């Protein structure tokens, strides 16, 4: 659903949003601004909106289409929290840019899956098969880790799996070629056409393209994946009542059920696991 | 060169209007055209410009080069073969235009205001070239122009057009001396005497009040007769030339003089009577 995103992408949404939060204190509603990518994050947040309202919190959702700006905006206080990234990414961002963020709690996992039109099972992967992955650098480590967990490759000893690169592959018995070419959004199209290749598709794009991570993939991350999507906040806000309430609501029974039902298990809730 | 709505065109016994597209294209190669603004391709040298119609007609390369060489000599452009049109003077450009028009040995050379963009001296040299071509190659030249002196200088026959119709035609001298239509008269004024003179004529007829102001039209051979001196000798009148113009053409001289004849009334009448009896045409100013 995109119809409720009225307050995003407006002409000057960010500045007034902050002003409003000041005004609204008198109206006994605390406003929090949370940045999120569209599916499932924004949809999950939408679902949580009425629940939070009941708790006296007004939720403003800011939609993002990239993985750089939500953190930047969190750092410059445009946002109070963001909900788009998994733990390894958060950690690498903190390390790279010195963000003083904390993980307030995990909400769900979107398991990365590997798909192929012509290759029916893992045992049928021919030697020299091309593996097409997103060119989004933060995804590379995750995909490589997934391949390693399936025993297809081995990564160098001591490499941080989250930020591993193709050059870190030390063993590659099937001689797989990893091609980090295209925009993640284009991967389903590539899957349709490059029939002999393995394509690693982020779950949100797979779902949107009508693929089922459970049924259509060769292999997929398990629920034990370290790539839990979390609510990240500035360290200073770690004890903020409203933000903790947000995590609480998102981890509640009601939202967890919503996630399971809406996404047919393709998005896996991780209630309170953090 | 457009589809005519009406009428027909016949060249050398062939009905052009009946031809189909392809025949029409081929028949066009029998007409060479020269244009006021030369219409040369700036991207081609003199040689290549002249070569164009031969390329279009599918003449083989070797033959083409030979023919071009010939034409360049004919129009006197030797040494300028590799110049681009922008490096040529107006007259030289028109020579290229003529050479190009002649390339396919046309039967007719159609010149559309071929000299109207040139200065008088260059015009003369181009006209001379056209006369030479007319004599040497024996092809028909059709000149479209509004410059009467061009017609006077090189044409044999003339047709005057108005609103897309021929309103008058015939021998050049005939038409010039006895223009019938209003258009023709206006055109002929250009060479025969101009409006300025008419203005002055009015002025003369008001300031010379004694005697009679008459206008004499000299036509062809009659200018040879020493009319004025004869009248002066034979009649007791004084003849004063007020203004006018006498010119020579290929077929003799013609022109107009406005003179004032003064003398005793009887003698005056006799003198005018005498002039009228010659082949000189007389017009007597009404108010004199």
């Amino acid at each position, binding site marked *: 659903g995109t119809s409720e995103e009225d307050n995003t992408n407006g*002409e000057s949404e960010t500045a007034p949003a902050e002003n409003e939060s000041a005004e609204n204190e008198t109206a006994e509603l605390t406003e929090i601004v949370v940045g999120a990518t*569209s599916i499932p994050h924004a949809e999950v947040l939408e679902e949580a909106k009425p629940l939070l309202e009941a708790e006296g919190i007004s939720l403003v959702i800011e939609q993002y289409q990239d993985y750089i*700006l939500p953190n930047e905006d969190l750092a410059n206080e445009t946002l109070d929290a963001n909900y788009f990234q998994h733990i390894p990414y958060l950690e690498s961002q903190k390390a790279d840019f010195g963000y003083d963020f904390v993980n307030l709690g995990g909400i769900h996992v979107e398991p990365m899956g590997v798909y192929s039109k012509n290759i029916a099972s893992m045992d049928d992967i021919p030697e020299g098969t091309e593996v097409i992955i997103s060119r989004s650098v933060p995804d590379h480590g995750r995909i490589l880790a997934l391949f390693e967990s399936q025993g297809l490759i081995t990564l160098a000893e001591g490499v941080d799996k989250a930020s591993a690169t193709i050059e870190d592959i030390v063993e590659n018995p099937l001689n797989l070629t990893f091609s980090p070419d295209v925009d993640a959004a284009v991967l389903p199209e590539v899957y349709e056409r490059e029939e002999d290749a393995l394509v690693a598709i982020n779950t949100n794009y797979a779902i949107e*393209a009508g693929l089922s991570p459970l049924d259509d993939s060769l292999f997929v991350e398990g629920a034990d994946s370290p790539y839990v999507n979390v609510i990240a906040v500035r360290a200073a806000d770690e004890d903020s009542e409203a933000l903790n309430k947000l995590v609480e609501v998102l981890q509640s029974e009601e939202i967890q059920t919503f996630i399971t039902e809406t996404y047919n298990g393709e998005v896996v809730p991780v209630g309170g696991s953090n | 060169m457009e589809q005519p709505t009406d009428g027909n065109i016949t060249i050398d016994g062939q009905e052009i209007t009946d031809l189909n597209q392809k025949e029409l294209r081929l028949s066009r190669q029998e007409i060479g055209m020269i244009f006021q603004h030369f219409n040369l391709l700036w991207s081609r040298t003199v040689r290549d410009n002249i070569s164009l119609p031969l390329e279009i007609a599918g003449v083989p390369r070797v033959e083409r080069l030979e023919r071009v060489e010939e034409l360049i000599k004919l129009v006197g452009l030797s040494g300028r073969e590799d110049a681009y049109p922008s490096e040529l003077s107006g007259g030289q450009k028109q020579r290229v235009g003529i050479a190009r028009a002649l390339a396919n040995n046309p039967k007719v050379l159609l010149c559309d205001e071929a000299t109207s963009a040139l200065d008088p001296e260059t015009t003369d040299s181009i006209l001379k070239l056209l006369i030479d071509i007319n004599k040497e190659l024996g092809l028909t030249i059709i000149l479209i122009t509004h410059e009467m002196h061009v017609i006077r200088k090189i044409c044999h026959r003339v047709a005057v057009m108005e609103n897309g119709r021929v309103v008058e035609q015939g021998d050049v001298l005939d038409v010039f001396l006895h223009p019938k239509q209003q258009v023709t008269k206006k055109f002929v004024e250009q060479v025969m005497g101009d409006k300025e003179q008419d203005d002055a004529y009015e002025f003369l007829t008001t300031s010379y009040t004694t005697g009679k102001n008459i206008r004499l039209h000299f036509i062809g051979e009659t200018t040879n007769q020493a009319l004025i001196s004869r009248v002066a000798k034979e009649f007791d009148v004084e003849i004063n030339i007020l203004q006018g113009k006498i010119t020579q053409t290929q077929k003799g001289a013609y022109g107009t003089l406005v003179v004032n004849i003064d003398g005793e009334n009887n003698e005056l009448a006799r003198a005018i009577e005498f002039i009228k009896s010659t082949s000189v045409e007389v017009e007597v100013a009404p108010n004199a």
Partner: protein
Amino acid sequence: MLNELFPNVKIADLWEATGETFYMTLIALTGTFVLGILLGLLLYLTSKGGLWQSKSLNLSVATVVNVFRAIPFIILILLLFPFTDFLVGTIRGPNAALPALIIGSAPFYGRLVEIGLREVDKGVIEAAKSMGAKTRTIIFKVLLPESMPALVSGITVTAIALIGYTAVAGVIGAGGLGDFAYYYGFQRRAFDVVFVCTVLIVIIVFIFQFIGDFITNKLDKR
């Protein structure tokens, strides 16, 4: 019926995206018009035989114009982050897209303005000079009015390029139809949205073209 044909198209969203496209295009166009005319005038006046003839000034303006024309728009957005942040106070949203949009299209438009100014009859400028006009007077009473049809038809061409740029500006959350088509249409495989957005963009371009042509014809008394 519309819902059946285009099940994913939500009129309200489309409407908003269309509004954003118009908003960005119109504001950026205004900025481009002013900045482009300034650049074009500078190029024209400092050129050989111009009123402010100056080889060095002309060369520097021309270099700036050429460099900014050369930088791909997507890179320009990135390079302008500090500037945008300073000017707009944010690097996200339609307003943050404006500096990049204006700076990206003004050099191109500036060239069109220069070409338009070159077509102003030299004689008319000479006439104005012979009347004792100051350079400012010549600019405002002669150069600009006499080249106005060219300036308007130039801004129409620029508008089309600008609409293309707004789609790229999606990376900084500028919104608009192009972005909407990519993120809500393509990423969610809602191809009906892509289609409808494309049609809307084409219509908007045609509207700009039509208005531009109309004004040009209206102004042109030649």
